């Protein structure tokens, strides 16, 4: 795996109560489909990002299951309504387990 950290952009880390916060996140990952054959004629093993979850503290905000159609270096953009402050925790998972976690504090009404 690459050591590049995920790229994160948050529209507002100190949103007003109820404000819709937009998150953009992108991670480096080969997203090998398992369909490809290498130069030596060997199949290249499937290596896909399997899941992405965003939590606010312990509450699940959203979950994403990428499949083979998702591009290399997967990009995800999502929104949530900021109802309370908390730690926004994003976790990426592939065959080898959790590969990246990013946490950002969201402070509502700040």
């Amino acid at each position, binding site marked *: 795996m690459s050591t590049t950290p995920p*790229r*994160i*952009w948050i529209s507002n880390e100190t949103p007003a109560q109820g404000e819709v916060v937009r998150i953009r996140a992108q991670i480096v990952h080969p997203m090998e489909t398992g369909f490809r054959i290498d130069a030596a004629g060997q199949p290249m093993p499937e290596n896909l990002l399997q899941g992405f979850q965003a939590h606010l503290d312990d509450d699940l905000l959203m979950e994403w299951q990428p499949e083979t159609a998702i591009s290399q270096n997967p990009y995800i953009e999502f929104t949530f309504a900021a109802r309370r402050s908390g730690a926004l925790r994003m976790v990426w998972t592939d065959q080898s387990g959790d590969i990246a976690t990013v946490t950002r504090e969201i402070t509502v009404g700040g």
Partner: protein
Amino acid sequence: MLRRRTLLTSAPAIAIGMGLIGRNALAAPAALTSETVLLPRKGNAARIVICGGGWGGLTAARYLREELPDADVIVLERNPIFWSCPMSNKWLIDVVDTGFLAHDMIAPAQKYGYTTVQCEITAIERDRKIVRTSQGNVDYDFLILAGGIRNAYDAWFGEDLEAAEYTRTHFPSAYIPSAESLALKNKVRNFTGGTIVMTLPPPPHRCPPSPYERACVMAWHYKTNNIPAKIIILDPKPQVAPIGAGYRAAFEELYPDIITHVPNAKVKEVDPYNKRIMTEAGDFDFDEAVLMPPHQASDMVFHAGLIGTDAEGKPTGWADMDPLFFHARQDDSVYVIGDSMGAVSPHFGHYPKSAHVANYIGKIVAGYIGQRVRGEEVAMRLPDNLCYMMVNGDPQEAISVEFTYEMGADNQVHQTQIDIDVRTPDLMKEDFVWIDGMFNDFLR
């Protein structure tokens, strides 16, 4: 000078075989005879002459000296300093200073052991293996054409050289290292308000993402200085590309009142005197403009008679070279590297015309020539590409695009493009790491 260059290349239909016209039109200074020899040969060593000391040329020079420690490597370059186009948009708003972009060309020549000559390349005689320059003639065993691009104003103005000259000086595109960069910077800084029109060249052109970057940094400057400016991007493409989503987000979120992107705006006619431009997406009046005409291979590729033709026999405007080994199809003692290169794959056309690719191909071709001179089999290599583009000034944020290449089972090169649309400060930092690595590679 301008007149001669324009004449040389203004009629693409007669482009092939222009070396002849070049020779006739050559007005040599009195002290030079047409056979003045610029540099003596160094014994039996292979002589490799590199035309153009930009990103591709200087990289090739360094790596040729490493491949072939005895080789006589000569770089011919018209400019007195190396001026980096990468980062030059950021320089418009003083994110970097002039010293960051301008580099001494003699120091790397001494460090790596090649020769640089400041001169204008005026003709190439492939039958005699001679390059003619404003300082005299240089003969070669291998020739590398690394001249970058030319601005094809003739595509807009035909034979009207006056309109081309007026446009070049009044609405400089600053896409080629030249006096235009500073002229543009002063224009950007002195602008007090109104409508600025920016035309994008049709693909393929030099550095496809950077016109949008330029629009962003200019918009940032006007926004932070409360200058009532509108920037209209006239794009011949149906949408912003590459990094379209990242740019669109920047336009809409950071500069909604300043930047307007107009798709499918192929230029039909330019009236620089009345500040008006007619496109397929409508007509636009402007107070100020950055007018980028279509791009073509540098003049020297025309001089060498190595411009390709398309299926209908029309000149492509780009070099006709082997897509994997980069030597001219008609003459394998001549290589073409960097932005002048023609198409390499039926799948995606040209390699991106970027400094990253020019540097990479410069290295690859140095390796190829090294292998040939040593009598080894030539082992094919493919490049990759990486570009960072600044979209926000505070905080400083960038987006980026990466390209990787593979040989397909169809024996053609395949490209994978990955846009990094999330604008972040770390991409900005990575850009500085990238350029520092590049400058270390061939300038320091």
